[in-house]
């Protein structure tokens, strides 16, 4: 890795960000018909629609509209929510923390559980633990997040009454959503971790370390794990959009007041300034996570590290 590579990588990131913002902006113009009418609904008066058009520069050509919108965004001004009649950034600010709490907790749960199971399955290959890991992972990835949420809500909330069935009342109310989200994601880490670990354990350098009489424990925890973890870093970044996507549904099921439920409500209410803002923020986070993963990768893998 060298300076040229870094510049190239940053250039790509910037390009992606521009593209992402264009898509977020264009969402509204995707539909046939008048965006103003789409947003205000079919019962709005001509007069109101005209005022709305003026307010949102909807009479200008598209590039000008985009320019106005993106300049606003860069100053932290995402426009006004039609439904709540409040600045979008205020709305999002209050909703962001619950979502972050949920997704980060679920991610941590998924990574810890997934990595552990994957490593153990690889070491004890073809044992009952290996089979169980594989089968349970298969089941988790075959279950839709919203249904898992409903099942949890029914059994642990309604039937057993161990946890609250919704809302954001303290730590207890976090348990069900985090598990509903995290357990499914665990499967996406356990399987790659297992196969990565198996592949590394098959490498010549592991065999040659064994031939030198190095303890099996050291071979696994030092020689193998260090190599197997490198590609898994990228895996975390790759799964990020899916975790965020899953959180939207989980938030709806558990009435969790985060960005996800705000997004669903805004889409249903055709409150597009909010939708655009959330799309933009989430994709921004994903792009940055990918960039970070790439850079981290080059730090932990000496093969692509900056030469001195």
């Amino acid at each position, binding site marked *: 890795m060298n300076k040229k590579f870094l510049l190239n990588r940053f250039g790509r990131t910037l390009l992606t960000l521009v593209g992402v913002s264009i898509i977020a902006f264009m969402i509204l113009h995707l539909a046939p018909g008048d965006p103003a009418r789409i947003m205000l609904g079919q019962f709005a008066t001509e007069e109101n629609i005209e005022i709305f058009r003026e307010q949102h520069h909807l009479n200008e050509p598209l590039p000008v509209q985009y320019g106005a919108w993106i300049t606003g965004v860069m100053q932290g001004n995402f426009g006004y929510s039609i439904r709540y009649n409040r600045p979008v950034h205020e709305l999002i600010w209050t909703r962001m923390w619950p979502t972050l709490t949920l997704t980060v907790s679920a991610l941590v749960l998924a990574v810890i559980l997934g990595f552990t199971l994957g490593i153990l399955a690889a070491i004890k290959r073809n044992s009952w633990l290996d089979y169980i890991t594989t089968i349970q992972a298969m089941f988790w990835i*075959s279950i839709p997040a919203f249904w898992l949420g409903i099942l949890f809500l029914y059994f642990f909330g309604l039937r057993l009454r161990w946890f609250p069935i919704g809302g954001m009342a303290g730590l207890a109310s976090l348990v069900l959503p985090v598990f509903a989200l995290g357990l499914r994601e665990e499967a996406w880490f356990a399987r790659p971790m297992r196969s990565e670990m198996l592949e590394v354990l098959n490498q010549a350098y592991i065999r040659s370390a064994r031939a030198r009489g190095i303890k099996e424990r050291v071979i696994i925890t030092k020689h193998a794990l260090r190599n197997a973890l490198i590609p898994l870093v990228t895996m975390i970044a790759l799964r990020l959009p899916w975790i965020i996507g899953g959180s939207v549904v989980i938030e709806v099921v558990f009435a969790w007041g985060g960005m996800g439920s705000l997004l669903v409500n805004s889409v249903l209410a055709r409150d597009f300034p909010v*939708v655009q803002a959330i799309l933009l923020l989430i994709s921004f986070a994903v792009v940055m996570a990918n960039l970070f993963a790439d850079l981290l990768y080059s730090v932990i893998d000496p093969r692509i590290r900056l030469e001195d």
Partner: protein
Amino acid sequence: MEDTLTYEEIKKDIDNLKQEKTSQLALVWSRFKRNKLALIGGIIVLIMVLIAIFAPVLAPHDPYRTAPLRRLEAPSFEHPLGTDAMGRDMLSRLIYGARVELSIGILIILFEGTIGITLGLLAGYFGGWVDSVIMRLVDILRSFPVIILAMAIAGVLGQGVYNVVIALGIVGWTTFARMVRSKILSIKESDYVEAARSIGESTPSIIIRYILPNAVSTAIIMVCIMMPTALIASATLSFLGLGVQPPIASWGSIISAGRDYLLQAPWISTTAGLFIMFTVLGFNFIGDGLRDAFDPTADRS
């Protein structure tokens, strides 16, 4: 050692031999068969497909006939899976739901497969700026969580089966494109493609005779791997009220409707979810089995 054989003589010998020969497909099938999970997956999917095709024959009741007096009935002999909040027979609705879900799934795969494979092929084979443009577009679209972008698109386009297909396909093709592209890249670098060029094969001939046949296995595996995502995502959209709308019976919207009656009638949401789970599980098992059958060296130490 001059050759004196005539075509007829050769043909006779060869025809005898051909009888005993096992084709490559047979080899793949024999490996697939030995994988029990893959076989189970195949059976599940087959059953679901049959249910979807023969829904009118199999369904005990009309899935749309409401009976206000018989709402939320527990499973009984007449209604094996009970009734929903409008007194409709759950089993019949779920059987018809198989039709809806599977057709949406197939349409999504067709839509994103066509776009993705074509663009992946172009990017992989031609490289250069074609590749750059396509791959940047892929980068951009993949920065959005599938379900979130699909929600927004479905929200703009409005509800309905075709809008679900479009909304999910617009994002989903990127996975096809990436996989096909990387497969094409590795085939393009292979010795047999260079050999084809060295005997004077033209570009179209190389693509049709050398690259595509070797990429077919990837495409087949991709279909089985992408089907679960398509099914879950479309059910999710329906669940959120952005996909297939009631009264059309879709598993996602049934689960959504059952949510309000979890305590009185838990069978509504649970059975519908089981249908989704088994179908998806079936495709996942097949996908895994096919991957191992096509590439037996992948997981062999």
